[in-house]
């Protein structure tokens, strides 16, 4: 009787283990370009996807472009970090993910950069890309043009770094091209 009670206790200890289930992301990660707000042209989406796949293959960092209609009442800073973490963009060891997020209803934009790329894409550089490449086009309603120029500048800047200083080493790609 007593032994049975102890065993129940031990079982209760064991059953208390196990990590909590992770929260589902606000958008589904359907590819390197997640155009949920429908701001891009299909051909452009394909070109960007190819450029982003080549960037990861040759330099390591994983870069995803996302557009959403609504931030669901949240601040874009919170929405974007939660999305980036839920998607697991970039290598976990190098923390070198980049997400360019455009919210069409709220008219907000953000570039989320993993800490491993902070030297190559510092705050002031990203702010300049937003100020000079994205906003002028967005203000004219030209989303495809703005995203193209902004993403292009970011890709160029990442590519400028030699792979060695990005900490690139051979590893299994996390996402198929």
């Amino acid at each position, binding site marked *: 009787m007593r032994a049975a009670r102890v065993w129940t206790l031990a079982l209760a200890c064991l059953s208390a283990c196990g990590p909590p289930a992770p929260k589902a992301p606000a958008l589904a990660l359907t590819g390197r370009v997640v155009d949920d707000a429908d701001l891009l042209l299909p051909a452009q989406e394909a070109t960007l996807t190819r450029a982003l796949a080549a960037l990861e293959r040759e330099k390591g960092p994983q870069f995803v472009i996302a557009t959403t209609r609504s931030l669901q009442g949240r601040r874009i800073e919170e929405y974007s970090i939660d999305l980036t973490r839920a998607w697991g963009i970039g290598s976990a060891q190098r923390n070198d993910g980049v997400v360019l997020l455009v919210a069409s209803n709220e*008219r907000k934009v953000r570039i989320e950069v993993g800490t491993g790329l902070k030297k190559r894409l510092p705050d002031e550089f990203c702010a300049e890309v937003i100020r000079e490449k994205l906003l002028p086009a967005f203000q004219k309603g030209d989303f495809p043009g703005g995203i193209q120029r902004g993403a292009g500048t970011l890709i160029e800047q990442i590519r400028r770094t030699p792979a060695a200083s990005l900490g690139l080493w051979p590893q299994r790609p996390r996402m198929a091209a």
Partner: protein
Amino acid sequence: MKIRFAATLLLAALLAGCGINSVPTAEENAKGKWANVQADYQRRADLIPNLVETVKGFAKQESTVLTQVTEARAKATQTVLSPDDLNDPAKVKAFQDAQGAVSAALVSVRNITEAYPELKSNDNFLALQSQLEGTENRINVSIKDYNEAVQSYNTIIRTFPDMIGAKIIHGAKPMVPFQSQPGSDKAPAVKFG
């Protein structure tokens, strides 16, 4: 013999489930997250002297606001919170208040710059402002991570079975989460149109 073996096995299983390892692991995790919070606040403190110099170059007459931010920064730098004091609500509050004063002073600086178009288009100022905004965002993220780690540590030391080890062996005390700062959710975001 068989009974003794079973008893040993059971004891080991019980001990492993009683917080011998999980309590210090959760504590170290929370302290690690705390180090990130501290590093982000340090980065903000490092940016302030440069900001003050830059603003001074365009808006000398705003010396009151600039003195305020310099003083708040000095006080915050002196208010050190060691990882071992994270379970002391008074010390955590003192740290938060000192950093909150810096946040408030930075908002005043941001407000006065509105009146100086030349300053607002100065490259150095634009760079500093984006670094400060980025740093404040990172502070918010690391506080959220720290609070989550604290919550999981506090849950572990208060719930069965880990609380047994927490109480008897580790003498664990709950850690204090950060309160969200008034206005911390109002950091300016880039808006188009």
